[in-house]
């Protein structure tokens, strides 16, 4: 049971989809769900065995660093499991939600997006990281514009231009690294990084971090995010907010921590994370459009995760990884529950969602659970994550970190304010005039939409009540990211 199956099998299934489309119209819709179910089973099976020592998979029979190798450590397999879980649930949602346009192509693009994300978290070679990053980016450009409406195409164009420049910067950085070291394996470069003057290395690091940072939506590179996440179909918004920006952030983190081991750059990352958090939460507060609000909220949460990574202690990285999982689940849940609400009312304004609790009770409950989890209230999964980050910042002891984490908590307060306002509107405000007549009483979302939403809500509750399920895996994953020497030793055997 090799980790390469996590990439190769869904890839093969994606190649089959056009052939299936020639045979039957409805069959391609189920292929992504099958692929992601396979991925979920394999990654959960592999997870206990990689906790102590990562599995290094070689391709083409040659030893690393002469061939491309995958390094399936606890962090990689944990993120692959998250991608598989969220991907599976959103795929089930999409079987009912996506009805117009070229449906087989949608499902093939969706499966390839997930293959790209899985490839990013599992690979150990720098250029391979770039290729899978491109698979992720290009399929998301196409999926953002899938519906073909004015807003979608415009957002896709802006996203494409910024993303293409970001990818070019990554390629320049890889060119610099190859010209300096002659090898492309991340472990090999990491081992040799100190034999070159720091200023030269710094330039390539700047290019790489900026390039990957466009996809990870770090301030000031995230101008594309509100448009793209709000204009895409809701299932794609869920995947973009839940998975794609996390994959970009993983690329940034892997490059910074493992390849460069850059301690001096970390305060800069800290400040950037804080800025992203504040900009995201403040902008979300003043929004009227529900999907744009959720997109800005994603930006804010990514800022918090980047802040936690910038603190760079074992406890804070554990908290950051816990937040990655909790935000992935919660944001996907929010977008999924909002999707049918928007479809039924035909508008994305928050005021048209007032009183939804009477018409779509299950969706509203799921939205409320997701919102409370994101804010960080106790019985939900968001609480342990934020608690770990705050405690790690306070453990640092420096007064500066206490001030910074207080600013971060201010962002959380703002977030709580706007989410509570929405939930209050869902439950306690009367529906707008004529809305009940249009949508009808008791027209809840179909089963294909409720099932994934309820599974996500259940996961949020279960892990929130006993977080030990996740913390057992997050600990080794954090040391996978931080411990550079162990990584090099496992890959190169030196």
């Amino acid at each position, binding site marked *: 049971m*090799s980790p390469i199956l996590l990439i190769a099998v869904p*890839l*093969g299934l*994606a190649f089959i989809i056009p052939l299936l489309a*020639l045979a039957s119209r409805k069959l391609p819709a189920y292929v992504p769900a099958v692929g992601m179910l396979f991925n979920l089973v394999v990654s959960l099976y592999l997870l206990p065995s990689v906790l102590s020592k990562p599995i290094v998979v070689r391709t083409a029979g040659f030893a690393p660093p*002469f061939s*491309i190798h995958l390094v399936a450590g606890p962090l990689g397999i944990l993120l692959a499991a998250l991608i598989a879980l969220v991907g599976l649930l959103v795929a089930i949602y999409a079987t009912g939600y996506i009805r117009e*346009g070229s449906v087989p192509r949608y499902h093939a*693009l969706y499966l390839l997006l997930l*293959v790209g994300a899985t490839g990013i978290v599992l690979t150990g070679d720098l250029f391979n990281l770039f290729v899978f990053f491109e698979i992720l980016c290009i399929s998301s450009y196409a999926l953002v514009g899938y519906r073909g409406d004015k807003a979608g195409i415009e957002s896709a164009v802006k996203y494409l231009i910024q993303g293409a420049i970001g990818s070019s910067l990554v390629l320049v950085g890889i060119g610099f690294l190859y010209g300096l070291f002659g090898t492309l394996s991340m472990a090999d470069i990491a081992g040799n990084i100190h034999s070159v003057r720091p200023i030269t290395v710094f330039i390539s690091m700047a290019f790489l971090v900026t390039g990957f940072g466009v996809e990870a939506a770090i301030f000031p590179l995230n101008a594309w995010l509100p448009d793209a996440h709000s204009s895409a179909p809701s299932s794609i918004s869920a995947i973009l907010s839940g998975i794609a920006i996390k994959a970009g952030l993983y690329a940034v983190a892997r490059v910074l921590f493992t390849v460069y081991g850059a301690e001096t750059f970390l305060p800069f990352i800290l400040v950037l994370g804080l800025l992203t958090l504040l900009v995201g939460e403040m902008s979300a507060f003043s929004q009227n459009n529900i999907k744009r609000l959720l997109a800005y909220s994603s930006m804010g949460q990514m800022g918090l995760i980047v802040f936690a990574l910038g603190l760079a202690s074992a406890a804070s990285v554990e908290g950051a990884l816990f937040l990655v999982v909790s935000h992935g689940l919660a944001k996907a849940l929010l977008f999924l529950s909002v999707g049918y609400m928007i479809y039924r009312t035909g508008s994305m304004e928050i005021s048209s969602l007032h009183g939804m609790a009477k018409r779509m009770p299950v969706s509203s409950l799921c939205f409320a659970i997701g919102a409370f989890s994101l804010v960080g209230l106790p019985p939900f999964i968001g609480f342990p994550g934020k608690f770990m980050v705050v405690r790690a910042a306070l453990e640092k002891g420096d007064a500066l970190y206490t001030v910074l984490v207080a600013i971060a908590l201010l962002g959380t307060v703002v977030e709580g304010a706007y989410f509570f306002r929405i939930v209050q509107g869902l439950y306690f405000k009367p529906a707008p005039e004529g809305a009940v007549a249009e949508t009808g009483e008791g027209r809840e979302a179909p089963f294909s939409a409720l099932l994934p939403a309820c599974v996500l809500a259940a996961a949020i509750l279960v892990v929130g009540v006993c977080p030990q399920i996740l913390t057992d895996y997050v600990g080794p994953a954090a040391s996978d990211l931080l411990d550079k020497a162990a990584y090099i030793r496992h890959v190169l055997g030196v």
Partner: protein
Amino acid sequence: MRKLISVTLLLVIVMIAVFSVSHAMFGAEGARRTGGLREDGVNFGRRYNNRALDETGAANVVAAVVVSYRGFDTLGEVTVLFVAALGLGALLYGARREKNAKEREPASLIVFTGCRFLFPLVLLFGAYVLAHGHVTPGGGFQGGAIVASGFVLVYLGCRGTLPAGRLAAAESLSGLAFVVIGFIGLAVGGSFLLNFLPRGTPLALFSAGVIPVIYVAIGLKVGSELGGIIGNLAGEVSE
């Protein structure tokens, strides 16, 4: 104002980049002159040049690197092209475009006859390039691009159309063939994309193990994919 800022910014970035390149041992040329980082030939492809003929049997070292040593990247690259073709088809699916008068006019007699004469020759040349990728410069991508230029000739010169369904089927089947070859390598030798066929004598057509087979699959895929993209841009998008 925006122009001035952007030009100064770019000049600064370029100067920094060139400065950093010139002061370190950079590139294969730099390594050759300053002695390089390591003696075992790991850096700068010296190892690939020395050992490719023995380990893979391919006379073209670049083909050995592309398909064998870094074959997983090539699989990813083929996937990127697939994603672009799918995305293009999905985006143009809802667009309604009328062909204007100029597009409906038939081509002149010389162009029409010439294209019909040249099309099979272009396909033959493309097939030659893609099948001999492991012994001469060339390979799947180059051959596939030549095949696709034949398709462009059909669209522009003969005003003909191509069977979109069969192109899409060819594209999927060849992509699937690439993945299946990888899996066979995994089953036989324990490594994805292992070179499991015999090496043969160098410079023969049937040498270098599985490399020409993969190149043929890639060439078919790229050719039919680019042909499909041209077809979509010309206005025929299938379901």
